[in-house]
């Protein structure tokens, strides 16, 4: 099966004050693991844009996105029934453990974590999903989250998800933590995981060109067997063990 598809937009809707949901239907169903991503060709732009998968009902691919630049502006302009050129799925996936799981999302990073939650629920793995947003209007409609934090306190706990993560680790006592969000959130979660001896898996983000590990454009430093080596976010990742990532300041 070649990983490039002519597909159609099956659904596109605004789901929060700044985010959109698009569901894409390929000729044949495409099945995706939690943490994997697809790339979308955006009319006239050189680089395809990578997006973590948010939902995968009956082989349709759902993603959440915010309008951040030219690529997402194009995707936002699409209508139901429009053609869309996608490739994937790419990358590794969360290594699902049959252990009490804490799921942490922040902002648009909640999307792949929400998809992971559906996988854990299907396998009856005990989990708790906490996610942080700027305010209540930023919470994507339809996303099932156990604990919500908002920076302005307009919904759930007031403050960043990072303010609560320590408390939750102590109370919930997870055996594994999965996370996606801004760099700083992933860094702190990885450090907490090491401090408390809890396995962490973090989904990273980086500008990409090829999506399959050949151009070496999206490398990060990771620690393996005492050595620091390059790893591509697109192929070796996007999910890494938190303790393996060499965090930039």
């Amino acid at each position, binding site marked *: 099966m*070649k*990983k*490039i598809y002519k597909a159609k937009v099956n659904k596109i809707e605004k789901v929060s004050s700044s985010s959109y949901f698009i569901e894409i239907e390929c000729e044949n169903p495409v099945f995706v693991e939690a943490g994997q991503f697809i790339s979308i*060709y955006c009319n006239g*732009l*050189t*680089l*395809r844009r990578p997006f973590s998968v948010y939902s995968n009902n009956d082989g349709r691919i759902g993603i959440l996105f915010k309008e951040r630049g030219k690529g997402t502006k194009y995707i936002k302009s699409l209508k139901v029934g429009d053609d869309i*050129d996608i*490739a994937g799925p790419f990358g590794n996936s969360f290594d699902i453990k049959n252990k009490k799981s804490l799921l942490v999302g922040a902002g648009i990073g909640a999307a792949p974590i929400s998809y992971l939650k559906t996988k854990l629920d299907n396998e009856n793995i005990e989990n708790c999903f906490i996610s942080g947003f700027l305010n209540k209007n930023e919470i994507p409609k339809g996303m099932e989250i156990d604990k919500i934090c908002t920076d302005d306190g307009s919904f759930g706990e007031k403050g960043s998800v990072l303010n609560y993560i320590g408390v939750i680790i102590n109370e919930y006592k997870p055996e594994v933590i999965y996370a996606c969000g801004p760099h700083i959130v992933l860094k702190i979660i990885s450090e907490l995981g090491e401090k408390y001896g809890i396995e962490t898996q973090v989904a990273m983000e980086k*500008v*990409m*060109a*090829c999506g*399959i*590990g*050949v*151009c*070496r*454009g*999206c*490398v990060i430093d990771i620690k393996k067997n005492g050595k620091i*080596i*390059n790893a591509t976010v697109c192929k070796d990742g996007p999910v890494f063990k938190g303790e393996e990532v060499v965090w930039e300041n």
Partner: protein
Amino acid sequence: MGKLSVNFNGFELKNPILTASGTYGYANEFDEFIDVSKLGAIVTKAISLYPRAGNKHIRITETEAGMINSIGLENVGIEKFIETKIPELKQNNINYIMNVAGSTIDEYVQVAKKCENEKIKAIELNVSCPNVKSGCLEFGTDENSLYELVSSVRAVYSGFLIIKLTPNVTSIEKLGIAAEKAGANAVSAINTLKGTSINIELINGKYKKTIVQGGYSGKGIKPVAINAISRLYKVINIPIIGIGGIETLDDVLEFFAAGAQAVQIGTSNFTHPNTAERLVEELDEYINKNGFKSLDELKKELRA
């Protein structure tokens, strides 16, 4: 041989559509998208004597009509290439040209000797690398140092030797002539243009600038490539392999018209990973539809 075949003094390509170094991996990585064995050849990622980790800072950014890369020639090194990638290329019946990078003439020569021992049929020298022994001036920007490099490699390598010329020079003709005189079998043109992007964001009243400096590629460089090839075609007698922003069959025809015998697809592999395979099919269809007996006949008509 089919209608699309190209014969470069014994180095045969089943068609003139190749993929450019750095955009296609080492071997069969693009089999996720296409049947790589259908292409004329792939040009591997640049291989150096020892493995290289590449650059630390931001490596790629999109620009108008293309992108800038600053990968820093990250690669597995010649030993690992021979050990792990050549068997994969052979097993999948992929014709390949090995791209070579180095920071001294001796490094190029040592790699070329290994290529000779391995009977690698064709190599392409990336001469846009800084020569650490002459003030880090790039080999490919000075005709004397290019001549010295190419003749040193020629002395140890008997296969098909291609020199990938840089456009960042005043007279690309002089460099093409130097490569030919030194014994190159072909030149490929052009490598990336020097480019810089400064992305500016205003965050909480302060400017955050993200600067990426490196090689500019993509459709924006096509006129520069066509210009370079047209000029080279007038002054050298060895074949020219055209590179620079090719996306469509019309682009390929334009490169043939300028004097290219074959072409390499680069940045477009990222945008549409099936570009090279599609161009092989479209060129085949075009030749048949328009009643050309061979690719050479088409090129002749285009250059008349």
